């Protein structure tokens, strides 16, 4: 085993372990933080496979944007400190079975698809931004354009869902959202 293999196995273990912690922790915000570890370890795996552009995009988008979005979403609610009781359900055995089945399916597909494939890693790296640009804008133009539609749909969806709150002052009379702390005696 080369040192790269050892590091790769280690990163895989970190990814798996933190992913398990995401679903088993009883603290809501901690689950989001374990997700950061999962994504970070995935990014490190990409880095190890010389896909450096994708790796830093993983950090920028998933760690830097998606999990922050999740945290903002959690903080819309109470974002409690400490254990939340509602984070577990009686469906645990079913969930474990489904997760195991999905994992088995994915592993089978990947192994069947790439059994003999071997990619030589190392210099020059295969994943710089120039190479990414070449493959996106020469080969994969259509998915790239479809992606913009996907982003548009997601954005409009988010705006529609949150729209009731966002009105110019004067139009919403039923309840004014307060940013001030609740309860008297503060400030």
């Amino acid at each position: 085993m080369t040192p790269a293999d050892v590091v790769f196995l280690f990163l895989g273990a970190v990814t798996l372990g933190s992913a398990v912690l995401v679903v088993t922790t009883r603290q809501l915000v901690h689950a989001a933080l374990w997700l950061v570890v999962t994504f970070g370890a995935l990014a490190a795996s990409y880095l190890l496979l010389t896909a450096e552009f994708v790796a830093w995009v993983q950090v920028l988008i998933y760690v830097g944007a998606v999990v922050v979005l999740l945290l903002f979403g959690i903080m819309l609610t109470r974002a409690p400190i400490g254990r939340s009781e509602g984070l577990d359900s009686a469906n645990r055995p079913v969930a474990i079975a489904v997760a195991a089945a999905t994992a088995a399916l994915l592993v089978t597909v990947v192994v069947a698809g790439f059994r003999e494939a071997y990619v030589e890693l190392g210099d020059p790296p295969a994943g710089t931004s120039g190479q990414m640009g070449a493959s996106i804008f020469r080969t994969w133009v259509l998915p790239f354009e479809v992606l913009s539609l996907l982003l548009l749909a997601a954005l409009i969806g988010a705006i529609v869902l949150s729209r009731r709150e966002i009105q110019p002052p004067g139009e919403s009379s039923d309840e004014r959202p307060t940013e001030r702390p609740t309860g008297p005696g503060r400030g």
Partner: protein
Amino acid sequence: MDGYFGSYLVVALLAGLGVAVVGGAFTAGRLLRAQRPTPEKLITYECGVDPVGEGWAQSYVRYYVFAYLYVVFAVDAVFLFPWATVFAAPGYGAVTLVEMFVFLGIIAVGLLYAWKKGVLTWV
């Protein structure tokens, strides 16, 4: 320490050094500073007045929408970077430009929609 892995090893070295410096500072601080907690000291400070009720505040859904816009535009920027690096190379030119125009145009529709709906105005 050369080539691709070498340069990332150097970055990892700097990260390790950073962890050591921060960890060292925390340890040194713990050893050096005074530590006499009293119940009054451990009350949440807030603004100096004794806190009432639980320490949380509801936040606007608006923050969530901005985080969402951030995700969309971060993805957008991430596609602009490789585009910018290959754009000037021979063999791309006008077609690639139009492709990016279409992409940005569709994203801009989203931004305009948000603008029209008043999402971008903080009231």
